[in-house]
C-alpha cells in the first residue's frame, strides 16, 4: 500500500527528521524483536526459523513505525491549529462527541450481552471487545491525520482486527487450508472487482457483472461440450465478455447517470440470450452438462498446484492482475486519464482526453474481468450454473465501497478494492466460523457498509456546495 499513502515520503525511504524519534523507533523495534525471539525459543521452534522470522519482523516493523512517524511529522502543523478549541472537559466533549457516544453504546451493548448470556463471558470475547473499542479510537483519532488513503488505512486496521479476533475465537483459523480458502474466494471476488473499480473511478457502475459471470460460466461449458478446444473456448468467451462490456459502455455513454439501470437491463438480456442459445437443441432446458478440462480445474480448484507449489494458480493470477492494475492506474497515461476524467470531465476534455474512449474501455475491461471470473468459477465448481454469479451483484459493489473508492469517480484505486475484498472475505470466514448462517452474514454485511463509508465517504454539507 505504500504507493498509495504518500508521495510526501522521501523517495520511499521513510526517515523521520528528528533523531530522537529514529532512536525511539529503533528501541521499540528491538524490544518487540527480542520478545518474539524469546517466544520463538520458548515454543521450541528450530533456531534458523526463529532467527529468520525475527529479522523479517524487525525490518518490517521498523519500516512501518518510521513510515507512520513521517506521515505525522509532515502533517504536524495542521492539528495544532485545529486544537484551538476550548480546553477542559467541555472541549473534549465537543471535539469527540460521536466517538464518545459510539463507545458508550458499544460498552452498554457488551455489558448487556455479558449480563444476560452466560456463555458469552469468555476471555476471547473480552479481548475482541477491547480491540473493537481500540479500533474505534484509532479510526477516529488517527485516521483524521491522513490527507489521502484514510479509507485504506481504516480498512487495513479493520482487517488486522478481524484476523486477530478470528484467530482468538476460531480454532484453525490461521491454518494453511483456511487461509488458502479465504484467498481463493477473495481472488474470485477480486478479479470480478477489477472492472467495477475502473468503472467506479469514472463515476459509473456496472451491475451486469453477475450475469456475465453466470453466462460465461455456462457458455464456456457449452462450447467445451460442443467439442471446441478448451483454450479456444476460453479465449472466445473472454472476447465475448469484453465485447459485451464494450456494448455496455457504448449504450450507457449518453446515459451515464443511469448506467446502473442500463447495465442491469443488459445483464438480464445477456443471461436470457445465453440461456436460450445453450438450450437450443437440448432437452435439459438451460442446464448444461460437460466435463471441465483438467488444466482449468487445476487453475481454480482448492487443491490446484502452481509449478509444484500447493497454491491454486488463481491466487497468483489475482496477485499478478492486482499488481498490473495498481501500477497501471498509477503510472500509465491510461490510468492517469481515468482519474482525470473521474475527477473532472470538463477539464479532462479540455486537455484532450476522449471521454468516450475511456468510458467504453473501462466497461470492456469490466466485461472481460467478469467473463474471466466466470471461467475460473467453472474450473472451481466443475459444473455450469447460471446463478453462480448472483452473489457478486452487490458484493463487487460492497468491496469497492468498503475499500474506499468513491462511486462519484476520481478517487480511489484497485489497491483499495483489494483491501475491501479481503475485509469482506475475512469477515465472511469469521462469521461462518462462529456458526452464523448465510442470512445473518448478509445482514451484517449490510450494516457494515454504512459505518465504513460514513467514516470517510461523507459529502460536504449543502451550504458548502452552493
Amino acid at each position: 500500500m505504500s504507493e498509495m499513502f504518500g508521495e510526501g515520503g522521501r523517495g520511499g525511504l521513510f526517515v523521520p527528521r528528528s533523531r530522537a524519534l529514529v532512536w525511539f523507533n529503533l528501541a521499540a523495534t528491538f524490544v518487540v524483536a527480542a520478545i518474539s525471539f524469546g517466544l520463538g525459543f520458548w515454543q521450541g521452534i528450530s533456531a534458523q526459523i526463529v532467527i529468520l522470522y525475527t529479522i523479517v519482523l524487525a525490518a518490517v516493523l521498523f519500516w512501518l513505525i518510521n513510515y507512520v512517524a513521517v506521515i505525522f511529522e509532515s502533517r504536524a502543523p495542521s492539528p495544532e491549529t485545529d486544537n484551538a478549541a476550548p480546553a477542559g472537559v467541555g472541549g473534549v466533549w465537543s471535539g469527540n462527541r460521536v466517538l464518545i457516544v459510539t463507545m458508550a453504546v458499544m460498552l452498554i451493548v457488551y455489558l448487556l450481552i455479558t449480563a444476560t448470556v452466560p456463555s458469552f463471558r469468555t476471555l476471547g470475547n473480552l479481548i475482541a471487545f477491547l480491540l473493537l473499542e481500540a479500533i474505534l479510537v484509532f479510526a477516529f483519532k488517527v485516521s483524521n491525520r491522513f490527507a489521502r488513503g484514510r479509507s485504506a488505512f481504516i480498512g487495513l486496521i479493520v482487517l488486522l482486527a478481524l484476523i486477530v479476533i478470528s484467530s482468538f475465537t476460531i480454532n484453525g483459523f490461521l491454518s494453511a487450508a483456511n487461509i488458502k480458502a479465504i484467498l481463493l474466494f477473495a481472488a474470485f471476488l477480486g478479479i470480478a472487482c477489477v472492472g467495477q473499480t475502473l468503472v467506479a473511478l469514472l463515476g459509473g457502475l456496472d451491475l451486469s457483472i453477475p450475469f456475465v459471470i453466470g453466462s460465461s460460466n455456462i457458455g464456456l461449458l457449452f462450447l467445451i461440450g460442443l467439442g471446441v478446444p478448451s483454450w479456444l473456448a476460453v479465449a472466445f468467451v473472454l472476447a465475448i465478455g469484453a465485447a459485451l462490456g464494450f456494448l455496455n459502455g457504448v449504450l450507457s455513454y449518453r446515459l451515464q447517470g443511469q448506467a446502473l439501470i442500463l447495465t442491469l437491463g443488459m445483464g438480464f438480456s445477456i443471461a436470457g440470450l445465453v440461456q436460450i442459445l445453450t438450450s437450443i437443441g437440448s432437452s435439459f432446458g438451460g442446464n448444461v452438462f460437460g466435463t471441465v478440462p483438467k488444466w482449468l480445474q487445476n487453475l481454480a480448484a482448492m487443491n490446484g498446484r502452481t509449478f509444484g507449489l500447493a497454491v491454486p494458480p488463481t491466487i497468483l493470477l489475482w496477485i499478478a492482475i492486482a499488481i498490473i492494475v495498481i501500477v497501471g492506474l498509477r503510472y500509465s497515461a491510461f490510468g492517469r486519464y481515468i482519474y482525470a476524467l473521474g475527477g473532472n470531465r470538463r477539464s479532462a476534455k479540455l486537455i484532450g482526453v476522449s471521454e468516450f474512449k475511456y468510458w467504453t474501455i473501462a466497461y470492456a475491461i469490466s466485461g472481460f474481468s467478469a467473463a474471466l471470473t466466470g471461467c475460473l468459477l467453472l474450473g472451481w465448481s466443475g459444473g455450469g450454473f447460471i446463478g453462480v454469479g448472483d452473489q457478486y451483484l452487490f458484493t463487487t459493489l460492497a468491496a469497492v465501497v468498503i475499500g474506499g473508492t468513491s462511486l462519484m469517480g476520481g478517487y480511489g484505486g484497485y489497491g483499495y478494492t483489494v483491501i475491501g475484498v479481503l475485509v469482506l472475505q475475512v469477515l465472511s470466514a469469521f462469521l461462518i466460523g462462529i456458526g452464523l448462517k448465510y442470512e445473518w452474514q448478509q445482514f451484517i454485511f449490510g450494516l457494515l457498509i454504512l459505518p465504513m463509508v460514513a467514516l470517510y465517504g461523507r459529502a460536504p454539507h449543502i451550504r458548502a456546495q452552493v
Partner: protein
Amino acid sequence: MSQSRGSQNTYLLVPILLIALLLSTAVIRGPNLVSLSGFGSAIIVSAPLILATFSLMALAVAGRGTVDLAVGPLLAFINVTIVKLNGLGIVTGPFGVFLVALGIGVLYQLFFALIIIFVRVQPIIVALSGFLALTGINLVILPRPGGTAPEWMASWGIGNTIFSPVLLIVLLAIAAWLLFTMTSFYANLRLMGYDERAAYTSGVRINVVRVGAHVIAGLFVGLGAICYTALIASGDPTQGTTMTLTAVTALVLGGVSLSGGRGGVAGGLLGALNLFLIGYVLATFNFGATQAFVTQLFYGLILVLSLLLTLLVPVIGRYLYFISPFAAFVVLGCVVVGIMLYVSTRDTYAVVAVAGGAFKQDADVMTRYLLLPVMQSGSGSVLPDLTTLQKTVFGFAAVLAVLTFTIRAIVAEAASVRLGAFIYVFVSALILLLFVVVGEQSHVPGTLATGQSSGSAP
C-alpha cells in the same frame, strides 16, 4: 392543452404509446384478459408492483440519484412480518395489520432519510446497505416461503371481480398522490429534485422536504406489501430482489427520471402496467423450455430500449410539441377500448353460434358491451337485475359526463389558438363508433365466419 403543459409531460408519450401497443397485442393474443376475472386478476397481480413503483417514484423525484434498491426486500420484510405476527396471533385485525405495514415502511424510510441528511453518504450506498441487511433478516424471520395471511384478507386475492379492496387501495394511493401534487410541498420537492442547490438558496427547507418524500415512499411500500400479502396469501422472503429489479424497470419504463425532478403517478402507473402486460403477452406465446429465459431476455431488452428512448424525449419535445400526452392517451385509449370491445363481443357471439343460435336478438346494449360473457343458457349475465330506473340513472350520468367533457374541451380549445384535444376526441369517437358497428355486424350469422377467421389471424 396549452403548449407548456404538453412539453412538460412529453416523457409520458413513450409509455402511452407502449401501453397501447401492448394492450392491443395482449387482448388479441389472450382474449381472456377482457373479462371480469381477467381484469380482476390483472389488477391484483400488478398492484404490488404498481405501489412499489410509486414508492421508487417518490424517491426518484427527490433527486440525488436516489434509487431505493431496498424497496423489494422492504416489501418482503413487511410481508413476512405480517405473516409472522399473524401466525403468532399478535396482530390479526385489519387495523393492526395496516398500522404495522405502514409503520414499518415509514420508519424504515425515515431512518433512510435521516442517514442521508445527517451522515451525508450517497443514497445509493444507504440503499445497498438496506438491501443486504433486509434480505438477510427476511430469511431469518421466515426461512422459507410459508405461513398464512390474516383471514380477512383471504377474499382479496381471488380476483373474480374488478372491484376488490386491492383496487381501492391502488386508487386511493393514486388519488392521494394527485392531491399531494396540488400542494406547494410538491413544488418544493420537484425543485429540490431538479436542483438541490437552487432549492436551498431559494429558501426551501430541503431536509424537511426530503423527509416528507421518504415518508410518502414508506406509505406506498406499506400499501404494496399489504397487496402483496393478499396476492400470495402467505409469506415469501425470497422475492425481494426480483421485486426490486422489476420495480426499477417499471420506473424507467414509465419515463421517470432517475436523476430527479421529473416523474409522476401517471408515469409510475403506466410503467408498472406496461411491465405486467409484457409478462402477459410473453406468456401467451409458447416457447417451451426456454419460456423463462425469453421472458428474461425481453425484460432486459425492453429496459435498455426504453432507457435509450428517454434520450429522445428532448427531440420529441422539440418536434412533436403539438401532441399533448393527454390527447394521445385519449385517442389511443379509445382505439384500444375498441379493440377490446371487438375481441370480447366476437367471442360472445362465437360461443352463442356454436350453442345453436339461441341468441337473444334484443339483448340490450348494457349486457353486450359491458364485457360480460352471455351465459349459454340465456339466463342472463353477471349483471342481471338492472331495473329501468337504474338504467335511466346510469345513462343520464354517462350522457352528463360526456357533455361536460365535450363542453370543457371546447372551452379549453377555444382559449388556445390551435385545434387540439377536441379534434382528437372527435376522431376517437368515430373510431369507437366504427368498432361498435363492426361488433353489431359480426353477430349476423352470414358474416360471423369471416369475422372469426380474420379476427384470429393476427
